[in-house]
């Protein structure tokens, strides 16, 4: 920890100059972009040949006549009655080819009614697109051939102005239709079709981003941007002719769209760049709501005033805030997205400033408003970039998934290999353990018996003895093989085989075997029972039977198998199995240590029995008197895991 702190600080210090350099570069880039914008915007929009320009008019406004030269600004008005009337004339030389002639108005605010020789040929108020001051809609009208006279013709234009912005009429061209049409088309493409295309694009992105947000609720940035785009699209497409009063209120409502939209975009930027939502963040929506409220309560004039006074500055403030957010993001994240957004905002801000200057006639201009267009272009760029980012994220997820599949497969193979190794090792260990046990068991029983067979055969005269020894060896071999079998902890299954062997053993001696198993179950099941337990118990029982046969001279042997649930089991509820072997032989006198005095062989047998019982955790109880011997083996509640006593 003490090491980490200085390292972080020094690396931070090292990163500082790099960050600062980047920020300075970014800030220096912005004026360059502004200058570039100004240069580009100075390129005049397409205009017909100056030959067909008509610029000299006499203007009658408020009963006052004056001669004016187009382009001309008039004062702002709030009524449709008695609009400013521009009267002029144009000449149609007789030498001109007899084609159709048109009047083209490249730019005007807000509406025009054009009459040639006293007959109205165009009223722009019926064209909803032309009614929007934020679109630089041109108009063109073909002069009917019957109206057109060779030589001088009258041209009068009524300019309808609805405040608060001032009226404007750009230079008018009158001439052959084929000469005017190309520049009209070019302007329509730029100022009418292009915004519609952008709006359509915004509509598509609004749907895509809306779906993204619906599927990823934890990323509200997408949803906010979708809302911004939806508002922009509504504003672009819901437009009605001015005279249509049914929707005029809706029309004016749409005026509030721009401040709301910019507030949404600001919200998006804050969320996108990971800002903490400010406590009074909702304030940015207030201007848009104020404008909307003004349209609800007041008339069209009030709403337009509200827009110009509240809405337009709000849009500007939002744009400035956006630029600050982008700049901060450049400083903090140093990524391409922030730089791009910042540069785009500079362009939009420049256009917005120029528009304001032109609306308030602070600079000489032809009133071409570009803020809306540039803003739409920026939104479309943001949306496209987001979609691109999303697709890239999907690709990364795909790559990640493929990577994971490979990793999982590798891990699986490793695991499998190690599992096989481990299994191999475990099997080898088990085999070795089993072999050790088998060796010991064979040594204990079969080995000794085979040695006796050898000894007997060397004596040469003891056929019966050899037979007995060999039989005992076979018996023991069967016991060893039997004990290898998995009996599932049920000692009764081992005793079943033992009973058969004892029966066969007793038959030639003419000793009766009485088998008393209490209940069909007999003994409790011990899941922890292992083959070596079984072999010890069976050998112990064998020893008891052999003693009865060889030394006690018994005529009857009784084997009782029962499960005791007596007072001994108070501490634990588990019942204990008990096997009792009784004979009716002559018995023996147990010595002070419980050892028999009757011969060394029997003594060793008893010692063996005790040792075997101890190894299995069983209790051995020996009683003997003149009436017979009783060996009682009480099985443990739980057999011990390890053969500790075996050494």
């Amino acid at each position: 920890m003490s090491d980490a702190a200085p390292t972080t600080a020094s690396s931070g210090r090292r990163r500082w100059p790099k960050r600062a350099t980047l920020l300075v570069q970014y800030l220096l880039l912005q004026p360059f972009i502004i200058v570039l914008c100004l240069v580009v915007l100075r390129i005049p929009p397409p205009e017909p040949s100056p030959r067909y320009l008509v610029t000299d008019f006499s203007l009658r406004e408020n009963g006052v006549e004056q001669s004016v030269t187009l382009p001309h600004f008039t004062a702002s008005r709030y009524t449709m009655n008695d609009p400013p009337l521009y009267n002029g004339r144009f000449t149609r030389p007789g030498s001109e080819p007899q084609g159709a002639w048109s009047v083209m108005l490249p730019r005007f605010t807000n509406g025009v009614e054009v009459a040639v020789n006293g007959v109205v040929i165009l009223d722009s108020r019926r064209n909803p697109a032309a009614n929007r001051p934020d679109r630089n809609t041109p108009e063109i009208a073909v002069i009917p051939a019957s109206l057109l006279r060779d030589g001088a013709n009258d041209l009068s234009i009524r300019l309808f102005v609805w405040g608060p912005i001032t009226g404007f009429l750009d230079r008018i061209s009158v001439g052959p239709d084929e000469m005017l049409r190309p520049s009209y088309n070019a302007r329509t493409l730029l100022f009418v079709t292009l915004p519609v295309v952008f709006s359509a694009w915004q509509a598509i992105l609004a749907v895509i981003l809306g779906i993204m947000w619906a599927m990823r609720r934890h990323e509200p940035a997408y949803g906010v941007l979708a809302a911004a785009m939806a508002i922009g699209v509504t504003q672009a497409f819901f437009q009605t002719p001015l005279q249509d009063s049914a929707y005029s209120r809706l029309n004016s409502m749409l005026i509030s769209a721009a401040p709301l939209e910019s507030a949404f975009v600001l919200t998006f930027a804050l969320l996108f760049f990971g800002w903490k939502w400010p406590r009074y963040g909702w304030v940015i929506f207030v201007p848009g709501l104020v404008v909307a409220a003004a349209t609800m309560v007041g008339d069209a004039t009030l709403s337009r005033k509200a827009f110009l006074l509240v809405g337009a500055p709000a849009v500007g403030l939002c744009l400035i805030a956006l630029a600050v957010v982008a700049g901060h993001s450049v400083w903090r994240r140093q990524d391409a997205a922030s730089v791009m957004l910042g540069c785009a905002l500079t362009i939009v801000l420049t256009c917005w400033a120029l528009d304001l200057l032109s609306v308030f006639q602070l600079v000489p201009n032809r009133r071409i408003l570009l803020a809306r267009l540039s803003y739409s272009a920026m939104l479309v760029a943001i949306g496209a970039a987001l979609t691109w980012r999303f697709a890239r994220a999907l690709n990364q997820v795909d790559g990640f998934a493929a990577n994971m599949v490979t990793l999982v497969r590798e891990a699986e193979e490793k695991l499998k290999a190690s599992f096989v190794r481990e299994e191999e090792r475990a099997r080898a260990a088990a085999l070795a353990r089993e072999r050790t046990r088998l060796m010991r068991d064979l040594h204990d029983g079969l080995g000794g018996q085979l040695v006796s067979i050898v000894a007997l055969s060397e004596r040469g005269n003891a056929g019966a003895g050899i037979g007995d020894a060999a039989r005992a060896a076979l018996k023991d071999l069967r016991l060893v093989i039997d004990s290898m079998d998995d009996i599932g902890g049920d000692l009764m299954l081992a005793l079943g085989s033992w009973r058969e062997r004892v029966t066969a053993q007793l038959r030639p001696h003419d000793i009766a075997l009485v088998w008393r198993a209490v209940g069909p179950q007999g003994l409790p099941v011990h899941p922890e029972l292992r083959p070596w337990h079984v072999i010890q118990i069976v050998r112990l029982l064998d020893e008891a039977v052999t003693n009865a046969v060889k030394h006690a001279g018994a005529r009857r042997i009784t084997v009782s198998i029962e499960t005791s649930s007596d007072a001994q089991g108070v501490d634990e509820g588990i019942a204990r199995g008990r096997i009792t072997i009784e004979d009716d032989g002559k018995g023996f006198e147990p010595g002070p240590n419980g050892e028999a005095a009757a011969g060394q062989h029997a003594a060793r047998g008893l010692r063996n029995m005790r040792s075997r019982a101890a190894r299995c955790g069983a209790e051995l109880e020996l009683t003997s008197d003149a009436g017979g011997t009783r060996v009682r083996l009480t099985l443990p509640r739980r057999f011990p895991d390890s053969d500790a006593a075996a050494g």
Partner: protein
Amino acid sequence: MSVLSDQGAAQPISILLVEDDAPTLWRLQDALAKAGFHVTSAATLAEARASLAQSGPKVLLTDLQLPDGHGNELIRETRQRYPDTEIMVISILGDEESVISAITVGATGYLLKDAFPTDIAATVRELVAGHSPISASIARFIVRRTQSTAEPPPGPPLNTAKLTPREIDILWGIAKGFSYAEIAGHLGLSRQTVPGHIKNIYRKLEVHTRGEAVFEALQQGLIRL
């Protein structure tokens, strides 16, 4: 005794004894001949087949490891050609590996090589009377095969699908060392019917033909076509 000698005099039971180890063969032959059986012996598969062709014996006693083949071949052939012949396998240890495989080809009993002479004769007589011998370890092996486990336990393949719950209960009793009388008591049977059940069990474990073997393997899902 008189009944036995009468029976022996009227129609001595013919036994074909197939065993390649000479001392063992003498021992078994002596024990059976003394008990009044008519014993023919063979030391190889070929000899046994020749002897079988001459006369179908009442009882076939055969070792498994023979110089010119396996005793199971002889058991299968005998079972097909002389369905009335009782077949017993001679085993050193009475282990399930040898006994069960012999039972699936048609044997209905087994004899331990070191059994006492009186036991040898008694076992054969019991078999002729329809009482098949069974040991606790054989019974244990069979009932463990009736318990469904994910992995078949080691040992020869065995189809226990035909065994009834009662027969399985009897096998459990034998595996745990209960006598026939005790088993009959526990299960509410007559003591005399238990040995007959054992023979039925052996018969049900027999795989008769190759076609049947395939069918049963299909039934048990051991193979898939």
